[in-house]
């Protein structure tokens, strides 16, 4: 009993620490990659190659003044950054990042919690992520924030449908909801689900970008129209919390994408954890690449694209996959 609690808390602490570090260095990666793509060099002053830049940023944000505007609804406003950050972290609990290992004579699974409905758990916590943004927009008492919040709720509801449907194809092929079994079924490169679900993968990727509010789908925080969107009224660590939430979300959809379509931690020679991190950061690189390449969609285009293109395609993918599985 005590042993289980101890092992679980240790695992959770390790995973949280890893994800938070990952978030911090995702910002560094984003700045460096975008800089390179735009023929600049990015951060260089803090440490070698600017590697200490995330730490400098964090210290700066902590020491900034925490401004609470007069017109906010206090409790909701204070809760919103947490609500947007925590669900993103929760996703990592069910994502496996390595094979089982023997430690001190005990079998330890390299996953926070091996739920047999892992994928549904991910969908559930992802669907809660929207509240942070909606509540921030509503409780700020500012029209820009409200616009950002409303846009975001409409966008996230629309794209969540496609997101869920794109995963169903994989579930149908694999015939399991457990992420652990999914990874085990993708032992070699030829078994990766991306080959059996190419359309599903493209849909997943597109919807995931919209779900995490990244360019070219970053309507909720389109700074040229909305000042800053839902986080306009936030400053200091509260703002940083939204920022971390966004990066944690990116990491989460990357990790899930790598697990669903690219065989998770499976790979030759290198240790499983390294493969997992490599695959996740490949996804992250793609995200950043997109950001540096594409302009923002117009809002009505975004909604029309979600409902008239992605949604029918996702339905088609589900139907065709189901038919093929039945045959």
């Amino acid at each position: 009993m005590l042993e289980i609690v101890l092992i679980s808390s240790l695992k959770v602490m390790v995973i949280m620490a890893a994800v938070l570090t990952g978030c911090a260095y995702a910002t560094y990666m984003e700045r460096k990659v975008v800089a390179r793509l735009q023929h600049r060099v990015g951060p260089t002053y803090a440490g070698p190659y600017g590697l200490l830049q995330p730490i400098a940023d964090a210290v700066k944000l902590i020491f900034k003044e925490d401004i609470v505007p007069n017109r906010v609804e206090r409790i909701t406003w204070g809760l919103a950054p947490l609500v947007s950050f925590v669900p993103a972290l929760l996703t990592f609990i069910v994502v496996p990042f390595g094979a089982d290992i023997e430690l001190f004579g005990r079998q330890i699974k390299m996953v926070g919690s091996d739920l047999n409905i892992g994928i549904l758990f991910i969908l559930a916590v992802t669907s809660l992520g929207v509240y942070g943004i909606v509540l921030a927009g509503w409780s700020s008492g500012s029209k820009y924030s409200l616009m950002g919040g409303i846009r975001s709720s409409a966008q996230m509801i629309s794209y969540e449908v496609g997101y869920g449907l794109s995963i169903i194809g994989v579930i149908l092929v694999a015939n399991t909801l457990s992420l652990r079994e999914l990874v085990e079924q993708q032992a070699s490169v030829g078994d990766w689900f991306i080959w059996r679900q190419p359309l599903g993968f493209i849909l997943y990727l597109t919807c995931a970008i919209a779900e995490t509010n990244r360019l070219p789908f970053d309507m909720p925080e389109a700074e040229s129209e909305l000042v800053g969107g839902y986080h306009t009224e936030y400053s200091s660590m509260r703002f940083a919390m939204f920022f971390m939430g966004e990066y944690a979300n990116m990491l989460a959809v990357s990790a899930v994408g790598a697990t669903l379509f690219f065989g998770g931690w499976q790979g030759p020679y290198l240790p499983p954890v390294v493969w997992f991190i490599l695959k996740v950061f490949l996804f992250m690189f793609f995200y950043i690449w997109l950001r540096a390449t594409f302009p923002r969609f117009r809002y009505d285009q975004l909604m029309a694209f979600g409902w008239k293109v992605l949604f029918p395609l996702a339905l088609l993918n589900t139907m065709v996959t189901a038919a093929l599985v039945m045959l």
Partner: protein
Amino acid sequence: MNLDTIIFAISAVVAVFGAVMMIGQRNPVASVLYLIVSLVAQAVLYIQLGALFLGAVLIIVYAGAIMVLFLFVIMLLNLRGREDLGAGSPPVSKVTKFVVAGLFVLELGFVVWSGVFPEAGSTGIQSAASEFGSVEVVAELIFMKYLYPFELASVLLLAAIVGAVVMAGRAAVTETDESDDDDAVKEQTVDEVHG
């Protein structure tokens, strides 16, 4: 007192607390938030019963989709809880609400009573089978045993959605009196319903 009991106690109290607070709020957004709290606590209860699938679906469908829609509509209408809630309710409802609430309490009391003191011969409330609420069991119920009722219910929902779109479209047309610009109006209302 083991871990299960503690988790049950906490989530049960939170679920009831959320439900009560939801009714007591004047601010509609706060009501929605309390309802979400209550739903999440209920999901924990399902999961504790071993019905992982039901718990996850409760969060995905209700907390994740329907409540977001509620919140969205409330924000669009900009309800801030200043509406006078007491006015306009007919005198009949003052009686009926107590009757309905009383019946519900009686019913609840009966269930609890028959669970705590089972009559001789009956076994009282049965604990669910171990497979209860798993993906396979739910799928078999929906897609094998109750396939036609399930499909009928979905057709009913579809009819309701189509009806809402048609009615909203008609209202928009008569308001703006732009029957020649029918397509644009329809498209707009479709977007609103989808949002």
